[in-house]
């Protein structure tokens, strides 16, 4: 289960990662937007504190094209290793990100499959082990697999980021049962990353007990990304409240009005 403070006040419900107490459980990405100018507005509407960006796409030579120049000062940067095909490449990207002043958080993304962009858990684990040893706060993006998640935890990952569906697919929580098991079994924040296509799916992940969700495509490619960011903010908060409130057990049939074991109480 997640290490959370049960509270009826959402403002006091924080998520601790890498020594930082986060108030927002919505992580967002910066890719796929039609302009950089819209990103700060989207961020404000989302209320997000943690923002991921592909280091491969950061344009260091053109200040007006550099996405980092559009992020508010207090943003927690979560550079990701998009484009890495091996642990070695991911480690190199993480080091370059830190050297470039992006802080010491990193989302490991090692993909060897360009058709579905599914992560390689084995390479991800290798990169996680190395980067934790180098003092990084490591958030590995992974295919939800309990064995792999345990190894990532043992390697020192700060959170686990299982995919709900392939990146950019907007298919929702296709891996729901596997994510449920991770939430149940792994004593680290489980952050559902990839696949969430609509606010209701983010709410669903939060109701299940996910510590946070990361959303990019669904916001960036919406008709109005700023409104969509706000919708996700509300959905994440609603889902979280639902989880904290203790959801009533879902029943498939109506409760029998005359209990079958009622006779035990009779006489």
């Amino acid at each position: 289960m997640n290490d959370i403070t049960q509270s009826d006040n959402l403002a006091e419900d924080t998520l601790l990662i890498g020594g930082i107490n986060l108030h927002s459980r919505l992580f967002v990405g910066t890719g796929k937007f039609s302009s950089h100018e819209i990103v700060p507005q989207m961020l404000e509407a989302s209320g997000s504190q943690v923002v991921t960006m592909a280091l491969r796409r950061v344009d260091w030579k053109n200040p007006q094209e550099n996405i980092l120049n559009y992020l508010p000062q207090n943003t927690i940067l979560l550079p990701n290793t998009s484009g890495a095909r091996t642990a070695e490449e991911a480690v190199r990207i993480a080091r370059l990100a830190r050297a470039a002043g992006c802080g010491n958080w990193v989302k490991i993304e090692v993909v060897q499959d360009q058709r579905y962009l599914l992560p390689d858990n084995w390479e991800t684990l290798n990169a996680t082990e190395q980067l934790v040893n180098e003092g990084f706060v490591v958030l590995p993006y992974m295919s939800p697999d309990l064995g792999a998640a345990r190894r990532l935890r043992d390697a020192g990952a700060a959170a686990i980021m299982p995919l709900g569906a392939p990146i950019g697919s907007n298919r929702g929580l296709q891996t729901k049962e596997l994510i449920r098991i991770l939430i149940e079994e792994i004593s680290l924040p489980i952050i559902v990353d990839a696949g969430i296509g609509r606010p209701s799916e983010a709410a669903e992940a939060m109701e299940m007990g996910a510590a946070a969700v990361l959303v990019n495509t669904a916001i960036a490619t919406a008709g109005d990304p700023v409104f969509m960011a706000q919708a996700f903010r509300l959905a994440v908060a609603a889902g979280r409240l639902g989880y904290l409130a203790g959801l009533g057990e879902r029943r498939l049939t109506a409760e029998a009005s005359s209990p079958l074991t009622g006779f035990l109480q009779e006489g």
Partner: protein
Amino acid sequence: MFYEQITDWQPRLSESAWESFSGVDVERVLTRETLRPHDLVVLLSPAAHSYLEPMAKKAQALTIRHFGRTIGLFTPLYLANFCTNSCLYCSFHAGNEIVRCKLTVEQAIKEGEAISATGLQHLLLLTGESRTQSGPAYIEECVQALRPMFASLGLEVYPLSTHEYRRLYEAGVDSVTLFQETYDQITYAKVHPSGPKRNYHYRLEAPERACEAGISAINIGALLGLSDWRQDAFFSALHADYLQRTYPGVEVALSVPRLRPYAGSFRSSAAPVTDASFVQIILAYRLFLPRAGLTLSTRESPQMRENLMPLGITRMSAGALTSVGGYSENNNVGSAQFEIADERSVPEVVGMIRAKGYLPSFCDWVNMRKKAAVGL
């Protein structure tokens, strides 16, 4: 080997086969999420011609989902135009009396600096096919000299051996562009009457050799209009699909070069690719390969580029010259390979992309191999 797929499919792609589909077949394909090669035949068939609008809507949605509203920018740099081939459709044809030249490494650096000053960070290096004038060692020298200035260096030269690709990869090349021109062997032999390019198979298998050598992105395509465009479009996309499946770690992209006027008198015997057919090809590529990059060059007019962009294009050249040199004021200029239809400068192309509601991306990928730091 991909050639087996060509020999397997070719007999099934007769004119009557293309004509055998109806609107019902197209509608059925449009409801599918994952397309098979047979579905691609349907989308390239005459029946699909009446379905360009629904195809475009689906293609646009797929592109935005996978790539966002982003267009990657690059520009070509012709290093040399010496050529031992005699491709009938090309200005660099060995028999053409054009101004031949080759940049020295110092000149290449000057050109690189001029291009880099425009903000572009993805550079495509080209040469004609002359192993004596612009051999792999010369290309390697240029790559090493230009690498520090650019995020990514691509190569569009004659087909190389695996070992040569490996050397250039080690030197800093991360993508390879190589067009088969046409997959039809009879036309291929006709339009390449002499020179090393006559070897159809060596060219066909070059993308695989590049993948084996470690290259992380491959861009292929047919010169549309050289032979029957339906067949060439089909085999280009099938080739891309084959490469994606065989090398899942490699980013595979398709280019859509359409035959352009050049310094000569070549007239293709194949039917020209009309604008509507061209659109049909781009849409069929996108629907069949949702995650493949689609590259559009300055061979097309500004108006055409603007209209094609939202249909599935992910990469465009900007401010391009097809002459040897010319970006830097101090260098001599060799003759151009083909006429450019979109002569707009980088800022003009950037402005157009923004006006269309897209983000022009100068840097979509940094080749971090052996790099000590980013942005230096």
